[in-house]
């Protein structure tokens, strides 16, 4: 199968999924339970992305003090909790990772 055809079909399917509920919920009301449930999409999806980034190295769970991404992540979580500032959190987390990497 041609690469262009694969890309085009994959692109159309991806667009279709992004468009699907924006389109449907424009025509029908969002059910109440669904509306409630949708509030939990951001914390659920973002945590499901964050935790493996901090804890998984080369496909395996890496839960120890040698894991500097985990330590830097914990420091960033504390910074985010205290400051509630995006830029500061990133700077603190990045600095923590670099310093821990040197040590």
């Amino acid at each position: 199968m041609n690469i262009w055809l694969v890309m085009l079909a994959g692109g159309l399917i991806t667009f279709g999924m992004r468009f699907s509920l924006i389109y449907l919920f424009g025509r029908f009301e969002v059910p109440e339970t669904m509306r409630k449930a949708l509030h939990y999409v951001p914390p659920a999806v973002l945590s499901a992305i964050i935790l493996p980034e901090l804890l998984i190295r080369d496909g395996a769970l890496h839960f120890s003090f040698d894991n500097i991404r985990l330590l830097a992540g914990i420091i960033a979580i504390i910074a985010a909790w205290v400051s509630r500032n995006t830029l500061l959190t990133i700077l603190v987390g990045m600095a923590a990772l670099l310093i821990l990497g040197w040590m």
Partner: protein
Amino acid sequence: MNEAKKIFWDGVRAEVPLLIGVFPFGMIYGALALNAGLSPVESQMMSSVLFAGSAQFVTAQLIQSATPGPVIILTIAVVNLRHMLYSASLAPYLKHLSMKWKILLSYLLTDEAYAPSVLNYEGKGITPAGHWFLLGAGFSLWFTWQVSTAFGIFLGARIPEELPLDFALPLTFIAMVVPTLKKRPMIAAALSAGVIALLAYNLPYKLGLILAALTGIIIGTMLESKASPGEML
């Protein structure tokens, strides 16, 4: 400055921290796609036709290993399944828009555009010019993705690996999610999703991510219905 313009730039500004992490990611994709045997034009076009980071990495890999086309297409669909959740989540805020706007914003709806936008909408509610925020976040990401892909194609393998810039992405997500964790159901949703994501990490095609997200959503919703409003904090 008019309202729409101001909100557009708010969206761009909210996106900037994410772009720091996206740029090296796009460069790595560009270099990897060439390496997988795609032509420079094919590699670049995939960034606008698919416009989905992880799906592009997977596609390049599968093309390299001569996977049959229908299997690649199916894989792209599964890897991008989470976008349906984003679509549902943003739908109430985009309901009033014309079809043209809905199509444009759907095309721009990636992980990195969704995250700052949904937080903005949950704080501000439905506003007449609110869609400009998603346009600002989505367009600045799109532009950065195209440019970084081109850099990666141009520079090939000459990208230094010492700088851990990829860490900027999880850091940005941490900065976004932590301040929202105030009520118990939210914390439970985040924790349960995180744990399932770790346990199910080795499932193929990011299915672990979908499973984790759905678990978190169900647990959060169930706890919310159980708690009386006074008990929530």
